[in-house]
């Protein structure tokens, strides 16, 4: 499902070069739940965004579902992302001016899919947000915001779910609830790559990889 071959990512800040990924190799099968753990600044987010087609690697190739992601044009890559990949972030990144329902329907609007309102409502119900559909993100608890972000990620029926520290801002109880939803997506055949520095994430994974100083080890 996901194959990274010799992926290097170098950030340049003036004359300084920061090697966020150093010749990273990683292979993930379809339906696999892989957690990548590592300390802050180890390159976890860079790895995730590189897999998600949002961060062009300096060297190496990234394949998702057999497609060389960075061989696609910018427009084709955006379409690929909209159709195949779901993102869940630590900071939720819900649009503050849209309601919960509006945020959840956003991927469908971007991809110009026909109305997914009923599907969105039933998913929100399933995630315990049935009575929060008209609320703005600022009116939700952090746990509710993360659940809304997760529903948004699932609305495009992604084959691959990429999660960047999804429980990083949650209390243990809400973190457990969110991880249960990830587990449910996995049990339904979804592939997950989740980066975290928390032990809890590893409990749900089929496999745990570590990242340190830009190098991925299994």
């Amino acid at each position, binding site marked *: 499902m996901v194959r990274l071959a010799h992926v290097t990512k170098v950030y340049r800040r003036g004359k300084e070069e920061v090697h966020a990924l150093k010749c990273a190799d990683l292979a993930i099968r379809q339906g696999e739940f892989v957690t990548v753990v590592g300390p802050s600044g180890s390159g976890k*987010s*860079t790895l995730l*965004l590189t897999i*998600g087609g*949002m*961060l062009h690697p300096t060297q190496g190739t990234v394949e998702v579902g057999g497609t060389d992601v960075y061989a696609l044009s*910018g*427009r084709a890559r*955006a*379409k*690929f*992302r*909209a*159709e195949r990949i779901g*993102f869940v*972030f*630590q*900071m939720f*990144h819900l*649009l*503050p*001016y*849209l309601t919960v329902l*509006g945020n959840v329907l*956003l*991927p469908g*609007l*971007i*991809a*110009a899919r026909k109305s997914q309102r009923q599907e969105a409502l039933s998913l929100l119900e399933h995630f315990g947000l049935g009575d929060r559909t008209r609320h703005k993100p600022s009116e939700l608890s952090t746990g509710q915001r993360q659940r809304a972000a997760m529903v*948004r990620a699932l609305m*495009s029926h992604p084959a691959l779910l990429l999660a960047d520290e999804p429980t990083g801002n949650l209390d243990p109880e809400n973190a457990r609830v969110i991880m249960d939803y990830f587990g449910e997506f996995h049990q339904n055949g979804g592939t997950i790559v989740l980066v975290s520095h928390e032990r809890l994430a590893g409990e749900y994974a089929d496999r745990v990889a570590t990242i340190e100083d830009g190098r991925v080890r299994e």
Partner: protein
Amino acid sequence: MSALPLILQEIWHRKLDFLLGLLAVTITVALFVALLTMSGASDRETKRLMRDMGFNLLIVPKDTDMEDFWARDFAQEEMPEDYVHRLAGSGDIHADHYVAILQKKIEWRGRQILLTGWLPEVPSARRTREKSFMGLGVPPGRACVGYELARGLNIQRGDEIELHGKSLLVDAVLAEAGSKDDIRLYTHLHDAQEILNKPGKINMIRALGCLCGQGGRLWSIRPQIAEVLPDTRVTEFRSIAVARAETRRMVERQAVLILSTVAIACVIWVAVLSLLNVWERRQEIGILRALGAGSGKIAVLFLGRAVSVGLGGAVLGFIIGTGLALHFGPTIFKVTAAAIKPVYALMAQSLVAAPLVALLASLLPTVVAVTQDPAVTIMEE
């Protein structure tokens, strides 16, 4: 992606940002609309005031000794009265308000007076609309007497006077002018010709050079008149002509300066607000990218917002600008107050120009928005 609901919801969410942008465009449009609505009245008023300064062109027979002319106040040489009709009949000369004059200094009741025979203005062929006539319209058999002359000879309005055998009724005694006009006696041209025994003759034509652009200045009028009347010479009363030209140019320059300053300030204002909006929404741009939105879709969100600011500002600006013009215009331009009316064409122009300006002002911030690295903004936790 239907962008409109997203644009409207974002505007509603960041009302203050939107209102500040709207304010900038509204002020600019209102100022443009107010000034342009009043510009017709202003132009007419300026023309009227400038015209009241008098004629600025003098046409005399070619052989006139100008030194002698300025010493005597009239040309010794004469030319046919028909010349004024030939000038007025030519549509190619940038001048208007032609008046044929026969003027001589004569002795009357033991005094030196200036007898000025004045033919009522001959309408010009180049007139495109009705204009009021300039100068004194003295009917035949009547006379207008200068202030000092009337005072010295105790002449009153309604008196009958006899001038070299010609009986004339005093139509008016003129107010003190503080110039040679105070010893002048105006009659109809044909009466003067009879008094001076110069039938069909005049010795000067006065006219008003039109100052549409530079078309009315002497260097361009002289050859035009020479083509119609080769045996005449043209002199410009420079002080009047320059005052007219400078006043009109100054008014135009002031308007251009005010409007361009306001327009530039508006563009900078809207651009800065747009840039702040992009900065505030950089994580949103990142998430939209993550959800699959391309550069075009993101640009539509930002440019659509700019167009909304422009459209709102155009409508409000037109209403406020027109209101200002209708309220204050008649106080400023008393003579041509009735000419100040709403110019609905400005509404259409505002609806095109204001969104376009707002769009241009937001272009750079939008480029910043679509080119910034989404990964970097998303990682800014």
